[in-house]
C-alpha cells in the first residue's frame, strides 16, 4: 500500500481485497488470493451479463503497480453518488434490494459462480436501481456445496421484510443495532404466531431459528452434507417467492389521500417552486449533490433532480418515503433517491471502531440542502433552539435554501395547539440572527399569498 492510500473502515472482513481512497477517488484492491475467482468472474461472462443488466457496479482495471505483495490488481469502480444504508430504506427499497441479490445469485450459478455473501450493505441505489457494489462477492460454485450466504440473506433481507410486513414497518430500525442483520431467533419471536402458517416464513425464519439453536454446539461432518444443484435452485426460488409475497399492506388503503399538501394557495405554491428553482439556478456552480431534508414525497426534491442533480429526498415518514420511491421507480427517475431520516436522531457512525457505517455528517457535506417547511417541526415539536439548527446545518452543506414559517401560520398553530407556547424566540428576527451566525444570507423572498419566507444562504464553515 502506498502512503497516500486510506483504507476504508468498512473494508476489512473479506480477505479477497479492500476499498481504499486516493485523492478523493475510491479504488478496490484485489488480493492474489482472489485472482482465480476474479478471472472467472470476467472470463465466464458473469461480469458482462450482470453489468449489462444493471445488477453489478462497473469498474475499470488500473494499470499501476500495487506496491503490496498480496496485491493482484487495482480496479476503479464507478462512482456512487451517495452511500445509503438499509436502516434508511423503506419497505420497497429493501424488497427490491433482496430480489436483486437473488437474481444475481441465479445468474451467477448459470456461470458457475455463487455469491459468497449477501449483505444488504453491499447493495446501493444508483440511478434508481439496486446495484451490487462489491465486485469481490463471487466465488466459484462447487457442485453440491450449500449456499454460504443463506443465513446472511435471511438476516439481512427476509427477516426485516417479514417484520416490516407482518408486524411494524419501523422494525427495520433494528438494523441500526444489529448491523449483520436481524438475528433469526429475535425475528421469530417478534413475528406474529400466524406467520407459522406461512410456509416460506415457517421454513426460512421459524424453523431456521430453531435449527440454529438446536445445532449451536453440535458437531457435523460437512463432507457428507450435500445440496444438489436442483436443491440450490429450489432454495433460491423459494426465497424469491417468500420475498415477493411480502407486502406493506398499508399501501393498499390510505395511499392516495395521505398527503393533502398545503395550507396555502395554488399560486403561492407555484411561486414557492419558482423561487426555489431561481435559487438553484443562481448558485455559482450546479450542485453535484442536494439533500432535501423533510422532503416528504419529493415534490420539491424533483426541482433539483429534474435538472439531473443527484438529490437525496429524506423524510421521517415511512409512507412518504415509500410513495416517493414508488414514484421514482415508476417514472424510472435516475437522479432522486428517497431515504428515511429522523433528523432529531440522524444516522450515526456504527460498527467496528465506529468506522463501518458512516454518519449523515460524514457522508456530507452536500453542495446544497433544502429545508422547506422543516424548521418549525424541529424547533417546536422537538424543542431544538433555532441557533442549534443553524449550527448543525452549517456543518452539513455549502448552500442552504431554508423556509421560515411564522407562528401565526396554521401549520405552526397546529403544532402549538396541544402544548404551551414556550417558544418566545421563534420569530423571523431571531431566525435571521441565529442563521446569520453560521451563514451569509444572500437572498430572501416572501412567498406571495402566504406569510412564509424563503432564504438562500452560504455556510461559513464549508468553502468551495
Amino acid at each position: 500500500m502506498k502512503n497516500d492510500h486510506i483504507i476504508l473502515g468498512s473494508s476489512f472482513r473479506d480477505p479477497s481485497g479492500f476499498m481504499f481512497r486516493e485523492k478523493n477517488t475510491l479504488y478496490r484492491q484485489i488480493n492474489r488470493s482472489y485472482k482465480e475467482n476474479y478471472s472467472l468472474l470476467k472470463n465466464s461472462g458473469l461480469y458482462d451479463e450482470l453489468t449489462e443488466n444493471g445488477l453489478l457496479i462497473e469498474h475499470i482495471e488500473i494499470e499501476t503497480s500495487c506496491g503490496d505483495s498480496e496485491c493482484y490488481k487495482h480496479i476503479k469502480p464507478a462512482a456512487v453518488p451517495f452511500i445509503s444504508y438499509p436502516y434508511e430504506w423503506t419497505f420497497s427499497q429493501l424488497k427490491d434490494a433482496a430480489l436483486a441479490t437473488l437474481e444475481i445469485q441465479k445468474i451467477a450459478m448459470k456461470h458457475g459462480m455463487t455469491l459468497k455473501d449477501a449483505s444488504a450493505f453491499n447493495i446501493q441505489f444508483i440511478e434508481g436501481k439496486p446495484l451490487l457494489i462489491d465486485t469481490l462477492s463471487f466465488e466459484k460454485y462447487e457442485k453440491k456445496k450449500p449456499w454460504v450466504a443463506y443465513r446472511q440473506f435471511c438476516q439481512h433481507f427476509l427477516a426485516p421484510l417479514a417484520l416490516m410486513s407482518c408486524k411494524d414497518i419501523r422494525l427495520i430500525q433494528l438494523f441500526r443495532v444489529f448491523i449483520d442483520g436481524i438475528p433469526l431467533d429475535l425475528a421469530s419471536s417478534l413475528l406474529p404466531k400466524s406467520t407459522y402458517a406461512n410456509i416460506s416464513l415457517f421454513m426460512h425464519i421459524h424453523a431456521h431459528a430453531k435449527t440454529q439453536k438446536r445445532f449451536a454446539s453440535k458437531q457435523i461432518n460437512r463432507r457428507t452434507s450435500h445440496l444438489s444443484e436442483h436443491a440450490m435452485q429450489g432454495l433460491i426460488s423459494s426465497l424469491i417467492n417468500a420475498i415477493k409475497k411480502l407486502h406493506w399492506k398499508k399501501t393498499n388503503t390510505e395511499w392516495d389521500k395521505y398527503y393533502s399538501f398545503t395550507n396555502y394557495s395554488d399560486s403561492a405554491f407555484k411561486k414557492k417552486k419558482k423561487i426555489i428553482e431561481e435559487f438553484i439556478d443562481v448558485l455559482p456552480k450546479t450542485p453535484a449533490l442536494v439533500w432535501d431534508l423533510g422532503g416528504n414525497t419529493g415534490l420539491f426534491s424533483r426541482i433539483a433532480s429534474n435538472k439531473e442533480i443527484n438529490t437525496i429526498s429524506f423524510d421521517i415518514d415511512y409512507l412518504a418515503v415509500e410513495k416517493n420511491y414508488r414514484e421514482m421507480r415508476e417514472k424510472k427517475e435516475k437522479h432522486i433517491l428517497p431515504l428515511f431520516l429522523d433528523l432529531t436522531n440522524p444516522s450515526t457512525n456504527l460498527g467496528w471502531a465506529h468506522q463501518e457505517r458512516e454518519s449523515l455528517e460524514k457522508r456530507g457535506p452536500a453542495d446544497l440542502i433544502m429545508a422547506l417547511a422543516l424548521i418549525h417541526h424541529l424547533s417546536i415539536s422537538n424543542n431544538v433552539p433555532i441557533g442549534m439548527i443553524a449550527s448543525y446545518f452549517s456543518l452539513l452543506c455549502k448552500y442552504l435554501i431554508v423556509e421560515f414559517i411564522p407562528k401565526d401560520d396554521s401549520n405552526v398553530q397546529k403544532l402549538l395547539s396541544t402544548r404551551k407556547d414556550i417558544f418566545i424566540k421563534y420569530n423571523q428576527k431571531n431566525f435571521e440572527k441565529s442563521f446569520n451566525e453560521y451563514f451569509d444570507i444572500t437572498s430572501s423572498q416572501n412567498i406571495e399569498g402566504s406569510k412564509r419566507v424563503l432564504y438562500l444562504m452560504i455556510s461559513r464553515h464549508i468553502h468551495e
Partner: protein
Amino acid sequence: MQFFIACALLLLPFSFANAYLDPGSGSFIIQLIIGAMLGSLIAVKTYFKKIKSSFLKLFGKQSTDKDKDDEE
C-alpha cells in the same frame, strides 16, 4: 407441507462428526433440509413435464382435441 417439514426437522438422523459448528451451522443444516425437499419437487416437476411432453408427442392431436372439448 408444513407438517412434513416439521417432521423432517425432528426425525432427520444427523450423524455429524469431525468439526465444531460455527454460528452458521444451523443455517447449513436447515438449507439441506429445505433444499432437499424443494429440490425433489423441482426434480419431480421436471420429470413430470418430460413424461407429459412424451405423452403429448405420442397422443398430441387427441390430447389437444380433448383439451379443446374440455374448454368448450
